[in-house]
């Protein structure tokens, strides 16, 4: 276990170095951050002086070397726009994104498991066919369209839910949480539904097909022959084995969910990391951009490590150390 974790940390470092390098190479293609800092009529010399001051005129290697040196000290650079260290900005924005992803995952979990199991066990019933039909449509609708339709119906027409933002938040040990106020929760509903809509159909279908496969296996037939209760066969013997691939896919998909927060947050003016990232790209706020990529890269490695550990716990035939 210890060796496994050490190996993972080394892997994580390599991954983040690569991400940092790629982020750094791309930033030169993103345009000139100085343009966003000055009015349009500012003279070329003034702009050039500012570039010099920001160190943007140094060669790629010099800039990258400086970045690496500072990164070793935990300093991922200074955001031009926020005028604060990039990591501080990201940590300020992270709670919003984490809560959104958490709420969306919860919705996915609470809906996909029962619906997936039901439609695997009773594939011929109307509800199962209906669920499959809806999920095909769901997979093919882009998230921003879902979001705009949700806003139009529930905010503009029905006035049931707020259309943008996070609402009232409570500071819990530096974590700005929207989960603890009614207003915050009301604001969370539409964005989390919109975000979950991209993954939900996939998970319903995945759980359904895995469960159907498991239900056909020999040991389930044996369990029926043995006269075990339906509940026990479905929930303990079949469901547990269905979970293995679902967890693997879930780990990977969590990353995609984070990627999709960029769109969802922008439409709902949700003040999280995704929205911040998109704005950073538009402003070519390069330090913030690279820092975001590195942080998300780190998050990926952590999630995948956790998935591997859970995998080992659920499936005893896999030992973590050998992976």
């Amino acid at each position: 276990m210890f060796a496994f974790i050490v190996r993972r940390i080394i892997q994580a470092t390599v991954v983040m170095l690569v991400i940092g390098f790629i982020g750094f190479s791309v930033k030169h293609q993103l345009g000139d951050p100085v343009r966003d800092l000055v009015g349009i009529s500012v003279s070329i010399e003034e702009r050039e002086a500012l570039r010099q001051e920001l160190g943007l005129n140094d060669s790629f290697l010099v800039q990258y070397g400086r970045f690496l040196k500072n990164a070793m000290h935990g300093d991922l650079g200074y955001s031009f726009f926020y005028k604060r260290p990039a990591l501080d900005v990201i940590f300020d924005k992270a709670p919003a994104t984490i809560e959104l992803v958490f709420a969306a995952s919860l919705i996915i979990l609470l809906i996909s498991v029962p619906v997936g199991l039901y439609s695997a066990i009773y594939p011929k019933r109307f509800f199962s066919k209906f669920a499959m039909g809806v999920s095909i449509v769901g997979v093919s609708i882009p998230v921003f369209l879902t979001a705009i339709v949700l806003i139009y119906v529930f905010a503009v027409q029905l006035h049931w839910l707020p259309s943008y933002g996070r609402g009232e938040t409570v500071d819990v040990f530096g974590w700005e949480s929207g989960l603890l106020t009614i207003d915050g929760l009301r604001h969370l509903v539409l964005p989390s539904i919109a975000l979950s809509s991209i993954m939900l159909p996939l998970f319903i279908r995945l759980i359904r097909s895995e469960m159907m496969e498991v239900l056909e296996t020999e040991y389930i037939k044996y369990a029926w022959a043995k006269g075990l209760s339906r509940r026990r066969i479905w929930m303990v013997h079949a469901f547990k084995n269905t979970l293995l691939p679902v967890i693997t896919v879930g780990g990977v998909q969590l990353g995609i969910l984070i990627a999709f927060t960029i769109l969802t947050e922008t439409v709902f003016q949700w003040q999280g990391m995704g929205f911040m990232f998109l704005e950073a790209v538009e402003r070519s706020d390069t330090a913030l951009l690279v820092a975001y990529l590195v942080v998300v890269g780190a998050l990926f490695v952590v999630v995948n490590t956790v998935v591997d550990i859970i995998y080992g716990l659920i499936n005893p035939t896999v030992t973590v150390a050998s992976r």
Partner: protein
Amino acid sequence: MKGFKIISLLLMLLIASTAGAKTLKLAMDADPVSLDPHVQLSGGMLQYSHTVFDPLVRWTQDMKFEPRLAEKWERIDANTMRFHLRKGVKFHSGNPFTAKDIVWTIDRLKKSQDFKGLFEPFTSAVAVDDFTVDVKTTKPYALLLNMATYVFAMDSVFYTGTDANGQEKDIILKTGASFALDNESGTGPFIVAEREQGVKMVYKRFAAYWDTKSPGNVDEVVLTPIKKDPTRVAALLSGDVDFIMPVSPQDFKIVGNAKGINLVTMSGGRVITFQLNQESRPEFKDVRVRQAIAYAVNNEGIVKKIMKGTATTAGQQGPKGYVGYKESLTPRYDIAKAKELMKAAGFEKGFEVSMMAPNNRYVSDEKIAEAVASMLSKIGIKVNLKTMPKAQYWPEFDNRAADIMMIGWHSDTEDSGNFSEFLAMCFDKDAGYGQYNAGNYCNEKVDALVLGAQVETDLAKRAIMLQEVEQILYDDAAFIPMHWQHLSWAAKNNVKLEAIVNAQNFPYFGDLVVE
């Protein structure tokens, strides 16, 4: 128990004091980047400045000057304007406002990277007494009052000294922390009570505001930036906010038809143009080719189809109301004439050019460029169009990377001369003229007239000079003007927005009445 009583008593007091208080929930596409009014010259920062600070004079809706911190002004000699300042004005810090603050503010403007260009003609101001200040220029300067609209008095006492980090309080920093970034003390109608950059800004009415005659009755403004156009409109329609700006042309219909919502549009000063690079394309050196392009472009069609009527077709740089505006210079759409001119120039078969345009800078910029490209194909000019986000567009523009480049321009001085100084004068890096002249158009006569207009203080004479400039540019087809974008605001019916908006897009929230 006792603590509980005190808390409930305080709560009751709070409720009592907020009863009847009017809060305006405002959504804009972005929030101010800093609390320092001199850090960036942009529409957003000037809107902020009008909320928290007061200028010497400001624009009225009919483009006249209205006294603010200056009660009256008089020209003493060719280079000097004397301003008589308002008495009894207090800054948010409690410090009294005097002539020293104006002197200090103009000195600081001359240090600001963004404003120093505009204040280049100014020398230091001189305080004659506590409430009289002489503003001097190096040569006679016709736009002195235009510039006075940018002199937002800052509290010189408040901004003097060093902050907790040992940094000078008056330092202007674009990319780092500074005292003025997070602290303000102006004389304006609102105080910044709370600010979380990119998330929220709360303005509270300044209790000791000097302008007691202002009808404004808003006690609190909560500004939320909402970047996406549809989300901003949805927030207004769902009742989550009271006032939005800007409104995208696509949403005019839905906002205009919505019950209880008032949509106001006004012709703005931003002109959208295309420049024809005479250095990269020798064909463009021929005036007939440039004219042919002007004749081939259907401004009317673009305004109708693409801008959905939310723009005014343009045949010149400055819109109506500007001194250089000439009624006779209108768009000239005539395909037959265009083809004739191409033939006369010897390009009957046409040629191939490259074009670049931004895709997120101006309203429908990408679609306009596409439409112009297809219009030019009708007179045999094959256009290879490339569009890109503004962050990448500006470096390309600086390099004059394509034969035809799109540029929109709003005059910082609200004067006709400014357009020509940046867009039409011969490129001169040292003097800073023609910085955005990607067409490399160069006409000595235009230069002489524009420079002459800078020092001409006889306004009637000056107008004739600037009108002549527009005429020459029109005859030369120096560039291809498209239209002037409209400005737009929308609010709930109880928000009386018509009275506070203007063509500069600086809504005066201090004077806003909410019923």
